[in-house]
């Protein structure tokens, strides 16, 4: 029986193992660094896209209510809008006691607006937009709220509140082109310019690069403009 000689098995030396460990560690670290960079990009891009999308929706909602301001149903039970202490558009909070904005307001400018119009012959509503500070779990920030109040013929019944936009840095409603005296809606604006500054939230802010964008447009209040 030939036993022969077993070839000596050579293992790895300690040094070799250590070098392999270091090289492996470096490549994993490089992969992770690359991954982290892409996560950062992704967060930034998603946040910007979210701000854009949000701005589009918010300005659309605001524009719809402002356009309808002053609309009076032909067979309404509440009589005319004008001259009854219920203006079609208001920035002072007089309608339904809308609170003054607690955030996102420029001094001397309006960050709240109320529009009044008829939904039907028996439904006259006042839709208001205003800001309020929100102490969220991630950060204290400013939110834009909507409230739909109902006119009973003599008083406003407070309706439901909804958040319309989050992470609002600044909002203002600028009244323009006041209607001439002698017309139905004398003194009320025929145009309202909306300027909305939204912050892109998410990961971007935690990385120290808070981005915010300003979106502005104007809405013509047709009923104020056209009613003789």
């Amino acid at each position, binding site marked *: 029986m030939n036993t*022969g000689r*077993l*070839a000596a*098995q*050579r293992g790895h030396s300690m040094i070799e193992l250590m*070098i*392999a460990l270091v*090289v*492996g560690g*470096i*490549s994993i670290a*490089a*992969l992770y660094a*690359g991954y982290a960079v*892409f996560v950062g*990009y*992704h967060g930034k*891009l998603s946040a*910007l*896209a979210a701000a*854009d999308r949000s*701005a*589009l929706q918010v*300005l659309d909602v605001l524009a719809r209510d402002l356009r309808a301001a002053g609309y009076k149903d032909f067979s309404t039970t509440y009589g005319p809008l004008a001259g009854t202490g219920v203006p079609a558009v208001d920035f002072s909070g007089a309608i339904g006691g809308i609170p003054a904005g607690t955030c996102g307001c420029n001094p001397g400018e309006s960050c709240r607006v109320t529009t009044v119009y008829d939904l039907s012959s028996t439904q006259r509503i006042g839709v208001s937009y205003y800001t309020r500070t929100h102490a969220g779990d991630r950060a204290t920030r400013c939110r834009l709220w909507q409230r739909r109040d109902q006119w009973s013929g003599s008083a406003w019944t407070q309706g439901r509140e909804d958040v319309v936009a989050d992470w609002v840095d600044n909002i203002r409603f600028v009244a323009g*082109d006041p209607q*001439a005296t002698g017309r139905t809606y004398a003194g009320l604006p*025929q*145009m309202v*310019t909306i300027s909305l500054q939204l912050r892109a939230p998410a990961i971007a802010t935690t990385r120290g690069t808070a981005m915010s*964008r*300003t*979106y*502005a*447009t*104007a*809405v*013509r209040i047709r009923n104020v*403009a*056209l009613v003789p």
Partner: protein
Amino acid sequence: MKLAPPAAGFTLIEVLVSVVVIGIGFLGFQGFYGFAQSSIQRTTERIQANFAAQEIMEQIATDTASGINPSAYDGSLAQCGTLTGKKRVWCDRIAGAIGTAPALLPATETRKVTVQTIPGSSPQRYIVTVTLASQGGKNHIVQRRIVTAP
């Protein structure tokens, strides 16, 4: 009995080469994100341009209904320095939102308001066209509307 020779591992050079190859792969990802970023940038410009055009339209519609002839607004919005009044305000606002007018095309073509009178209409109607090109010239939006005199 002979044992098989020990299996050959990776050499340091091989590992380094693979790291470089993976790095090149990451560069490809980088290019993808660059593309995504420019897409979002273009979308934002488009949104801003549409908002600006809407603002101009609403103002012209309001003024026309108040008895102002909108033909006064006909003309280029490319060179803000040469404009006055509302056109200056619009021009500055557009420049702030999407940058100054591109120099690629004739300046009068890139940003302008065109007002055409509809002949024989009573009350008088006008076709208003707002054309806005972004700074890089990649976005080009056109809004058109009919406005009516009182």
